[in-house]
């Protein structure tokens, strides 16, 4: 257990925890785009910047990304100093030039009083902020189907060789985690399309409702040893089935009692 000071308040934290988690747990709002508990922090978006100092530093202070900074005994953290706000404003101003159509970034920038970027808008840009959340979550899943390709301003997230990704299983983890919702996907007529690859969706044997992609289910069956029949029926039908079975038990018990 270590003690840190956040905005003048002494707070207990567990060793090894990152600053951002501790700050958020105590109800202090800090913007962040690339942070998610399920993936390793990388500090790509730089928005979670805070100011840190220590008593023995004699007034010297530095700015760090809180998602990457482990808590230390005696750390003094300030989350909303004028300098920190200025840094966040600059980042948001630049992000707004990079992806002017992103509602998430527009909303964040508005909170910091920026309504229009002061930089030149990137021509033909998409809303990708290159935070690597999608590639990191794919890695956690054990597939690594997508990665960053190209260099400089041509760098983008794509499957290998721009073709259909052979390792993709159609789980939508990348699209779900993307902070700016840039990864397009569609579910139509039993088919899921993502990264230009088509996946068959499992249809419920009883009602025909679509659940998850068959390849995702196959992956879970193989990797986590889950019986295949669990995936054949949708959750609504499985609940009805459970009610029917429980009903049978009740009826049997009543028969025995009589």
């Amino acid at each position: 257990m270590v003690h840190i000071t956040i905005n003048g308040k002494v707070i207990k934290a567990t060793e090894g925890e990152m600053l951002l988690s501790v700050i958020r747990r105590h109800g202090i709002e800090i913007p962040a785009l690339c942070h998610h508990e399920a993936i390793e922090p990388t500090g790509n978006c730089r928005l979670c910047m805070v100011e840190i100092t220590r008593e023995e530093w004699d007034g010297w202070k530095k700015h760090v990304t809180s998602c990457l900074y482990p808590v230390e005994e005696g750390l003094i953290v300030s989350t909303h100093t004028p300098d920190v706000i200025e840094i966040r404003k600059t980042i948001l101003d630049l992000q707004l030039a990079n992806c002017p159509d992103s509602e998430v970034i527009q909303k964040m920038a508005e909170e910091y009083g920026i309504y229009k970027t002061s930089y030149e808008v990137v021509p033909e840009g998409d809303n990708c902020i290159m935070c690597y959340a999608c590639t990191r979550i794919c890695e956690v899943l054990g597939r690594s189907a997508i990665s960053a390709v190209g260099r400089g301003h041509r760098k983008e997230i794509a499957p290998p060789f721009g073709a259909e990704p052979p390792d993709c299983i159609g789980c939508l983890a990348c699209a779900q985690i993307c902070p700016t919702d840039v990864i397009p996907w569609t579910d139509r007529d039993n088919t899921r399309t993502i990264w230009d690859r088509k996946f068959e969706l499992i249809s419920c044997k009883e009602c025909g409702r679509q659940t998850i992609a068959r390849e995702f289910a196959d992956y879970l069956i193989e990797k986590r040893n889950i019986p295949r029949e669990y995936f054949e029926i949708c959750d609504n039908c499985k609940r009805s089935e459970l009610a029917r079975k429980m009903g049978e038990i009740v009826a049997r018990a009543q028969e025995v009692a009589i």
Partner: protein
Amino acid sequence: MKFRFEVNPSLCTGCRTCELACAFAHAQNQKPGRSRIYPLAYEPDKYVPVACLQCDDAACVKSCMFDALKRNEVTGAVELDRERCIKCMACVAACPFGCALLDDVQDEIVKCDLCGGNPACATFCPTKALAYKKI
């Protein structure tokens, strides 16, 4: 495990009080959540309350690739860590009883967490078809 959630289906009248209690116990941002418990009719006018069975070897825990589902050793409930969940729907598809659900209003996966040790459904059940007992 020190506690057990008990269901006595023969006492259930299908009044749906549990559903209401659950939705309000899991309200967020002034909106009721999706109920984690449902009284379902197996015959006309005969109901059983259907909720998560907190399986020992739970398929939902096994199916989660991001370790978002973990067992609370005190209450015995399998709890969902919302911060780690990315809504891949694996647990919803894998649960053999269909008791991991998608709440489309709050846009999150929900499952019974036994209200952290004091289930609202059991508290409000008028016929005591639901009970949370020490074992």
